[in-house]
């Protein structure tokens, strides 16, 4: 990460993700759906602190990431239609929630409930796939720090999602980033919200246990 990118990330007032955070704050307080409830109606000030560091989590037998949890609240509590993946609204609220946990260590437990998801994620991480026949680990475990087409290969710790990626010139989710990698190795780009993607997110977050969240991060 270059010093310039780091400076953009640390600039809380005029960093590029600030528009999403401001939108997220407005949406957080806005009453939505027939239930006439805003996010803030249930979740008091400061109650979201540390929440993003514990996602994805297991809820009623399914792996749920933070974006999906926002939509669960929208459909079940607010009775409002869910937001589309990668929509400005969903990213804004997710970033606003995750911002509350900035600086807190990631805590994903490996226990009886989460083990099936983490095992599946680990298996996917180590599985060769796509026309290039590469696994995630071949780049991100074996060759991190080296260069791939001019870019440094990172260790794949998802500490700052949703991130503002300079290449995207916008905020994007971890699933969007994973789909980028899948496309890059010419594997099947899984649809947003797919079980396999959530399992991979789960494993990556467990793998980053103890690292501090830096949402919304800026990356090249």
């Amino acid at each position, binding site marked *: 990460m270059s010093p310039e990118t780091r400076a953009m990330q640390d*600039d809380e*007032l*005029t960093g*590029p993700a*600030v*528009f999403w955070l*401001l*939108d997220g704050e*407005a949406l957080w307080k806005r009453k939505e759906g027939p239930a006439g409830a805003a996010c803030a109606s249930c979740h008091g000030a400061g109650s979201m602190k540390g929440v993003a560091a514990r996602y994805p989590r297991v809820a009623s037998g399914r792996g749920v990431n933070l974006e999906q949890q926002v939509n669960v609240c929208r459909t079940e509590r607010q009775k409002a239609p869910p937001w589309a993946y990668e929509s400005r609204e969903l990213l804004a609220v997710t970033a606003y929630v995750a911002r509350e946990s900035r600086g807190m260590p990631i805590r994903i437990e490996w226990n009886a409930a989460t083990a099936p998801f983490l095992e599946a994620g680990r298996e996917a991480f180590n599985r060769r796939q796509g026309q290039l026949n590469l696994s995630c680990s071949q780049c991100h475990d074996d060759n991190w720090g080296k260069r791939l087409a001019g870019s440094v290969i990172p260790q794949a710790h998802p500490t700052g999602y949703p991130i503002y990626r*300079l290449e995207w*010139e*916008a905020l994007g989710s971890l699933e969007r980033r994973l789909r980028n990698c899948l496309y890059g190795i010419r594997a099947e780009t899984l649809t947003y919200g797919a079980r396999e993607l959530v399992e991979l997110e789960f494993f990556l977050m467990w793998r980053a246990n103890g690292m501090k969240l830096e949402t919304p991060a800026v990356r090249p």
Partner: protein
Amino acid sequence: MARVVVNVPPRAKRGEVIEIRTLAGHVMETGFRRTQTGELIPRDIITQLVCTYNGVEVFRAELHPAMAANPLITFTTVAAESGTLEFKWTGDNGYAATQSAAITVV
């Protein structure tokens, strides 16, 4: 929804050089890109930012298609007197945004 943000130090000493940071949320579409069917995507950029300090223009920037989205423009000026800094962005398709910030000079 918020589309422009400025960061001006609220207090400054007289004669001090102050740094002003401005950020505008904008796609900055260059006008050179094409869609998958080959049609040109029309240009849509911010073309100008003007900053006035108590009515006196202290900074002006003209932007062109090579600027990235969400342009951050940082500049400095001398804190002369207490008052207001007014920022005005104008661009293609009637884009216009204004923002102001107060500064106290001691």
